[in-house]
């Protein structure tokens, strides 16, 4: 591989992370950063290894991911069909859109007190808050994508004597799929963020709780270890989603590539 080819790979991104880590290590070592508040990366990694090995961190991570996943699935099961309905039916759109636009910009953390009031501090409240937050990007993407389905394709469906339902499921849904996938990717990140946020506010268990608890007991290496874990999870979640997207929507990526 030539030097210039390396720039085309993801290796440069990894190299940047390693370089930044080394710089921080050096800054802390020379005491330009206060080692009490910023433990050196080597200490953070050691803490990460220790909490991983003891099973403590994996346990919290599992709880956080489990909640995020369940709530995210609920959000998708609601947002995709409902979004298709809103995109297909002008009546449904006119009826619900003002309500959606009123709810959508609400900061999801502002929903937490209301959710606690009605649902208590158990799992159902947490799932509700996470699902509430991640439903919007998927819903808006699905509605918009279905509205933008090529009218020629819809005419083709009508000409082939498909019913309205068949046009929605066999033409509108697949052609909206790439845009819906983009909304789902944003929703996934939001689900993870809210899963952590709820844990930080309500406590109990999960990675968010782990981080906040470490901070409150002045175990900053543990706190940063938790934050590093979040970064790794985010990266892996996005990679998994991208792989899924490339596989399922192969036709889209290849046809777009060809048009360029």
């Amino acid at each position, binding site marked *: 591989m030539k030097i210039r080819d390396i720039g085309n790979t993801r290796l440069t991104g990894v190299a940047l992370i390693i370089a930044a880590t080394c710089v921080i290590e050096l800054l802390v070592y020379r005491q330009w950063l206060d080692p009490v508040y910023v433990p050196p990366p080597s200490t953070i990694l050691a803490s990460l290894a220790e909490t991983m090995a003891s099973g403590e961190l994996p346990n919290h991570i599992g709880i956080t991911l489990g909640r995020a996943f369940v709530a995210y699935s609920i959000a998708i099961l609601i947002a995709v069909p409902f979004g298709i309905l809103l995109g297909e039916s002008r009546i449904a759109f006119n009826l619900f859109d003002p309500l959606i636009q009123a709810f959508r910009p609400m900061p999801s953390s502002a929903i937490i007190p209301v959710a606690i009031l009605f649902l208590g501090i158990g799992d159902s409240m947490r799932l509700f808050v996470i699902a509430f937050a991640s439903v919007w990007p998927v819903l808006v993407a699905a509605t918009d994508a279905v509205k933008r389905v*090529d009218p*020629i*394709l819809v*005419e*083709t469906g*009508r*000409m*082939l*004597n*498909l*019913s309205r339902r*068949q046009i929605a499921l*066999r*033409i509108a849904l*697949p*052609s909206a*799929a790439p845009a819906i996938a983009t909304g789902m990717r944003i929703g996934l990140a939001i689900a993870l963020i809210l899963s952590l946020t709820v844990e930080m506010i309500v406590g109990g268990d999960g990675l968010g709780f782990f981080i906040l608890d470490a901070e409150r007991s002045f175990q900053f290496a543990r706190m940063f270890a938790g934050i590093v874990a979040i970064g790794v999870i985010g990266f892996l979640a996005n990679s998994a989603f991208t792989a899924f997207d490339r596989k399922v929507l192969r*036709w*889209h990526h*290849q*046809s777009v590539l*060809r*048009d360029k």
Partner: protein
Amino acid sequence: MSTSAALRLSNITKEFDGNAAISNVDLEIRTGELLAIIGRSGCGKSTLLRVMAGLVQPTRGVVELNGRPIAGPPEDLTVVFQEYGRSLLPWKTVVSNVAFGLSAARMEKKERVDRALSCLDAVGLLKHADFYPWQLSGGMQQRVALARALARKSSILLLDEPFGSVDAQSRLELQDELLRLWSSFGMTAVIVTHDIDEAIYLADRVCVMRGSPGVISAQAIIGLERPRVQVETRGKPEFSALRRELYESLAG
């Protein structure tokens, strides 16, 4: 009985937001006929075709298919759109796209695929059955659309500037392909085009649409003998005379 009309349009007017796109069009298409409608862009010829297809509801007037008024797209009719790339489903292979034309029919999946394959064979695309539409040239994509029409065994084929956006060579080949399919399957066909030569070469009769709102202002019977052969037919004196006549009808 004078009901050899496959399609009959009576007094058709179509308005969009109060503006008439076509006005009081009367037109009969005889069974087995190949009719061409020519006109400038924006004269309402595509609207007229969509009204015939049941895709656009006329503001006034009636469309009858084999003597019965139509309320929506009839099963016995297939449209080939100009925008071939947008009328095929990019997530389906060529053979699935052709079989998709039979979605509304009560058929076994295997039967659908078999028929799709035989229709692809008829347009010379059997080898490309497992390709995706976007892997094919424009002319080949339009052949897929033709195969989809064949698979439906429609007796009426409506073509909206079908060869308008393919290269000149493919265009001539597709014209001959259309003539071959039309005559061997005994279809009734209506083709909308802005190409006078294409209209003369293909059709039994050419209608001229003009104005805004569009009306049918003239027509010409094309008596050129069949089968038609590109260079030979186009070189005939009658061809030139028809071209002049139609050009004057369009321009004058």
